[in-house]
């Protein structure tokens, strides 16, 4: 593994950096927008957890599938989805990915393989297994990657999906982003083992994989290996990536239940982006190249914000469409 990391191409590294940065800047903007009351409803930021989405996003094949949670803005963006579409959805605008019908917790872009963001804990693990089964059946060598949190490992669907995927040897990669908290409760208070995913891998005959989820090189290398295994027909993987969210659980949460020192440590010493920037400089990448990415990202975010802000609310009539494949919502003749 270490070899693989040493040998990453510069191009890949810049992609990883750009991808993380786009996530970070987009979500900072999302935060600003809801401070201005322009984002309605709720919103769950992944600030601080960008390395996981980015590492997988860069490693995945364009036709692979992503399944993520309500905390899925980043997982959606890294697949190449339009930032305007994402911000527009958060703002309930017509340009939103789902024209406002889904909202921030359900970002989806099928054309990019973003097969939905799921807001009820656990459900998307078996659904991801189903997409993997379909890929296996059709012989396409596509892989389904399924992201979820530490808290999710305690719900029944986790267990069923893991066992099922192993028994059918499905091309699915389960990625547990352990950010140490479920909603407001420390994961250790409600879990029988220290590492909620890694310590349970053996219960499904799987290798225990525990990584630093804030080191994007490690995430990328781990992703490549698991994707390859899945693509070769060797079955699922379960990866636990340690990370931390910089903000509260959701819009309404100031995150006061976390010790100040803990938050400070993760923000200052273990920030995936500033640490990676330092590493890239150390590896001899020119600062100008990084600054270029940074400028382009800022511009991208500004443009997306403007486009989304200028988009009107969706016509309310569309609320009555697309329950059924014929486009209607009618349940009688």
């Amino acid at each position, binding site marked *: 593994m270490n070899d693989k990391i040493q040998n990453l191409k510069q191009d890949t590294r810049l992609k990883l950096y750009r991808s993380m940065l786009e996530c970070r800047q987009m979500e900072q903007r999302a935060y600003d927008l809801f401070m201005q009351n322009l984002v309605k409803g709720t919103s769950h930021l992944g600030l601080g957890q960008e390395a996981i989405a980015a590492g997988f996003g860069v490693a995945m094949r364009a036709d692979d599938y992503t399944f993520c949670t309500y905390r899925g803005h980043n997982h959606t963006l890294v697949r190449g989805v339009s930032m305007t579409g994402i911000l527009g959805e958060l703002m309930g605008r017509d340009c939103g990915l789902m*024209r406002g019908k889904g909202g921030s917790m359900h970002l989806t872009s*099928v054309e990019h393989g973003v*097969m939905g963001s799921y807001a009820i804990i656990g459900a998307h693990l078996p*659904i991801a297994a189903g997409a993997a089964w379909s890929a296996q059946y059709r012989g396409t060598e596509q892989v389904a990657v399924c992201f979820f949190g530490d808290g999710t490992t305690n719900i029944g669907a986790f267990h*069923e*999906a893991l066992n099922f995927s192993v028994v059918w040897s499905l091309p699915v990669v389960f990625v547990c982003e352990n950010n140490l908290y479920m909603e407001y409760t420390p994961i250790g208070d409600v879990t029988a083992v220290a590492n909620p995913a890694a310590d349970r891998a053996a219960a499904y005959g799987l290798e225990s994989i525990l990584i630093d989820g804030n080191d994007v090189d490690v995430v990328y290398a781990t992703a490549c290996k698991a994707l390859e295994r899945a693509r070769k027909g060797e079955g699922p993987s379960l990866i636990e990536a340690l990370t931390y969210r910089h903000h509260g659980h959701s819009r309404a949460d100031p995150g006061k239940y976390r010790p100040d020192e803990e938050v400070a440590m993760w923000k200052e010493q273990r920030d995936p982006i500033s640490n990676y920037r330092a590493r890239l400089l150390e590896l001899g990448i020119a600062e100008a190249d990084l600054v270029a990415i940074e400028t382009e990202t800022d511009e991208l975010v500004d443009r997306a914000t403007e486009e989304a802000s200028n988009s009107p609310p969706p016509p309310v009539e569309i609320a009555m469409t697309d329950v059924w494949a014929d486009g209607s919502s009618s349940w*009688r003749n």
Partner: protein
Amino acid sequence: MAQLSYREAVAAGIAQELRRDSNVVFIGEDIASAGGVFKATVGLLEEFGPKRVRDCPISEQAIIGAAMGAAMTGLRPIAEIMFSDFLAVCWDIIANQIAKTRYMTNGQFSMPLVIRTANGAGSRFGAQHSQSVENWAMAIPGLKVVAPSTPADVKGLLAAAVRDPDPVLFFEQKSLYGTKGEVPEGDHVVPLGKAKVLRQGDDVTIVALAAMVPRAVKAAETLHSEHGISATVIDVRSLVPLDTTTIFESVSATGRLVTVEENPRLCGWGAELSSLVAEELFWDLEGPIVRVTTPHIPLPAADSMEDAVLPSVERIVDSVRRLAD
């Protein structure tokens, strides 16, 4: 035409679709090697092999989740939930995920899947293996709901359900598995959303579903021969989409509606139908709308009690007579 049992019609219906479209797959517990606990899927593994007909662990959330994921990515899965009571263990995936995903994603996904399940009472299996829960499904926007009463409809409606781009809950009534009837050979499809008028009458419209259909027909015969009351009997067949056209036409003509439901009373499909008629056909009504249902109780196991609480031919006859008086 072949004479098949309702149970054999299930296997025939699934086989027809597996043969027709290589994207159709069928999964569930004990459905492959064993041919199903109701022997309704015998022979499918032998004909189609384990890639298309697969046994699953006791993991209903995984089974239904897998069906959903597959339906979103090009397959047309049929998933079996052994008893409809067990829909409760995977209700999140059905009611919150499968039903809502097309809508939430502004139509980005199709969800062509069928969940087949054995529904209803009569086998003395007790409260956790005898429920009629078609109303659970009807209450969820985004689900189509079908419940055939004859072997021919089993095959034909199952074909339509599999070919439909939307998720369909397909309720097979346990107490009908042994009944027989003519089933068309060759490609047989009965469109979803069409009620079937089984008998024309002038005095009252009786609307029934699944195992209640033969009872309603029997009751209509008795009403005619013994009491001079002439009843239209309609097999509603599909709760969503609901064929209000056919039903309303009949109720307008007879002025009287009786529903016969196997489900416990509160919030049954008959309540919905009654409320539609009370709202839209009020001025055509000549008398109260009567619902004949199982009482609002869990089901007892012992044969004597189970028989006593399900709507019987006698109870239907009495209810109609009281209405017609």
